């Protein structure tokens, strides 16, 4: 077990725990955007940065999502400097995605009120903040790796190879669920699932329940579930309500 203090409050946690989790156990708020318990930490949004001082006296700022706890660590989750940086970071994000409700809410929470940078055309990024939660979810949870981050630097985007229809996408919608800014929109109508990503749109056929007749899951997802579970496709002919 490791003993540390967060904002003056002592806590004892298992070795290997990240500072972010230790803080959350104490109900201390640290803003995050690219962090989710279901996928590995990434360290891209930098909002979870905190001020730390090690036992040996070394002081610096680190991303709490990726910094493992240490004995005698003194963590300050919201110094003046940290707060200042968080406001600058959310401002940079708002310039990129000016119409995002989630970003606007967070800006208010962080006390960022001015508009420091000119707004970009919302159609450029479609609220995508390149947090890579969707790509990590597709790779780690669904294990299909149908989407990835392409290009480099300011041209970086989230998408499918060649921005054309993906053979690997099973239309499960995990990416849309995990996206913190609703940049991926899923609409199910008339037996079709439409997935709108920032730079490409795909359509998938939905399967019909053999009993109640409602369209419940994409056919591709059912095929994937059959393959993973070893169950025959017929097992999934009935929707989960009717089974």
């Amino acid at each position: 077990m490791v003993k540390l203090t967060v904002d003056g409050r002592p806590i004892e946690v298992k070795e290997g725990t990240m500072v972010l989790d230790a803080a959350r156990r104490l109900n201390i708020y640290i803003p995050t955007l690219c962090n989710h318990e279901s996928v590995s930490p990434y360290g891209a949004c930098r909002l979870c940065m905190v001020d730390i001082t090690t036992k040996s006296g070394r002081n610096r700022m680190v991303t709490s999502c990726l910094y493992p706890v240490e004995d005698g660590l003194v963590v300050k989750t919201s110094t003046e400097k940290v707060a200042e940086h968080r406001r600058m970071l959310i401002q940079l994000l708002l310039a990129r995605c000016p119409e995002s409700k989630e970003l606007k809410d967070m800006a208010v929470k962080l006390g960022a009120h001015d508009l420091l940078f000119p707004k970009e055309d919302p159609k450029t990024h479609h609220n995508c903040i390149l947090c890579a939660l969707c790509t990590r979810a597709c790779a780690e949870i669904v294990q299909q790796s149908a989407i990835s981050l392409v290009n480099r630097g300011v041209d970086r985007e989230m998408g499918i190879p060649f921005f054309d229809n993906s053979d690997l996408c099973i239309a499960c919608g995990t990416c849309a669920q995990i996206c913190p800014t609703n940049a991926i929109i899923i609409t199910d109508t008339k037996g079709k699932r439409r997935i709108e990503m920032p730079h490409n749109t795909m359509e998938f056929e939905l399967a019909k329940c053999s009993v109640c007749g409602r369209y419940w899951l994409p056919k591709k997802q059912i095929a994937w579930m059959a393959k993973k579970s070893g169950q025959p496709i017929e097992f999934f002919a009935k929707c989960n309500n009717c089974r």
Partner: protein
Amino acid sequence: MANQRQLKSGIKRILSRNGNDSAMLVSILQDTQSEFGYLSREAITEVSKQLSIPLTQAYSVATFFKAFSLIPKGKHQIHVCLGTACHVRGADKILDTVERELGIKPGESDKELNFSLDTVNCVGACALGPIVIIDGKYSGEMKIEAVKPLLDSYK
């Protein structure tokens, strides 16, 4: 333009030269581009298939590194160095002149596919800046007036 069969066998050879190792992906894509002129969709897809890696990995790597071109390249590759030493000696004016002469910007090829233009961030010949490299041939101490004659010699 290579057909699918040539692509498949060419890539097979490249992969075996690189130990069929997916860790050598960057080298493999470079060899593929050298052999086929650029990285076509078919080439990238074939590489990912033969290496048994997700297409997303091959595509992300192909679009991350500046050395790769996913569009056909011109007959002659022009690289203008924009390293600091070259910049200090006026490399941006050289680039402007090349752009004006050929009517293309870095990353583009002209319509007839005679020339492809790219910038490069230092080739290590800094004492001789500004430098223009055409098809691997280095021309140092470039002057604005020397650009047109140099390009004309390749037309």
